C-alpha cells in the first residue's frame, strides 16, 4: 500500500486523540465526584 505511514498515522491520531480525551474526562470526573454526593447527580 502506498503511503501506508500517512494512512496509519491518521487513524492512530484520530482514535488515539479521542480515546485520550475520553480517558481524561473520566479521570477528571472521578476526581471531582469524590466531593459530590451521589444523589445530586440527575443522570443516575
Amino acid at each position, binding site marked *: 500500500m502506498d*503511503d501506508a505511514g500517512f494512512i496509519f498515522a491518521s487513524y492512530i491520531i484520530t*482514535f488515539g486523540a479521542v480515546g485520550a480525551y475520553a480517558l481524561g474526562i*473520566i479521570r477528571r470526573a472521578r476526581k471531582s465526584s469524590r466531593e459530590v454526593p451521589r444523589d445530586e447527580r440527575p443522570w443516575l
Partner: protein
Amino acid sequence: MTTTDTNTSTNSSPRDRVTGTPFTRGLGVVILAGMTLLIILGIFVSPADVNQGESVRIMYAHVPGAWLAYLAFVVTGISSAAYLWKRTRSLTWDRIAGASAEVGVLFMGISLVTGSLWGRITWGTYWTWDARLTTTAFLFVTYIGYLAVRGLGGTHQQRARRSAVLALLAVLEIPLVHFSVQLWNTLHQEASVAGRGTDVEMDGLMLFTLFLGVAVFTLMYVWLLLHRQRSLALDDMLDDSGLDNALTARRAEAQGVAR
C-alpha cells in the same frame, strides 16, 4: 501533589458510576465495535480510489470528523441561544454548549491534521489557501478562544452569559470570514484544488465505509458530549458545595500523610 486512588472517599467507591450510565456503557461497546469495523474496512478491505489512490482511506476518518465538528459548533450555537433566551435559561444549556465546543475543537483539530496528511499525499502539499480550509482553521482558533473565555472564572452565570454571547458572535463571524477569504482567494488563484477528486463515482463498499464512519463519529460525539456535560456539572457542583468540603478533605489527607 497527587491524590491517590486508594484514598477511601465518603461518597463513591472506585466501582461507582461517575459519569457513566447503562446507556453510555452500551453506547461505548457499540462504538468500539463500530470503530474496529471501520478500521478493518477503511484500511484493509475497501478498494483504493481511481483518482486518489490509497489516500482515500484517510477520508473515512477525516470527513466524518470534520462533519461532526461542524455539527458540534452548531449545537454550541443553539444551546447558547437557548441559554440567553430567558424562558429556557438553564446552566445545563451552558454546559452542553461548553461540552459540545470542546468535542468540536477536538474533532476539528483531528480533521485538520488528517486532512493535511491527505493533502500531502494527494496534492503534494499540507495546506492550500482554499476558502474552506482557511475558514476551518479560523473556526478552530475561534472556538479555542471560546473555551479560553469559559475558563476565565467568575460565577457560573457570568461564565454562561459571556460564553453564550461569544458563541453567537462566532455565528456572525464565521460567514464573514468565509466570504472574505473566498473573495480574496478567487483573485489569487484558480478555483480551489479541494474540489478535485472529491466528486468521483463511489464504489458501494467505499460509500458504506464512509457512512459507517459518520455513524461511528456521531456515536462518539454523543458519548463524549454526555460524559463531558456530566463532568462539567460535577465541577460546577463542586464549586457550589464550596471550598469547605475540599478543604476539610485536604486537611484530613494531610493528617493522614503526617501520621
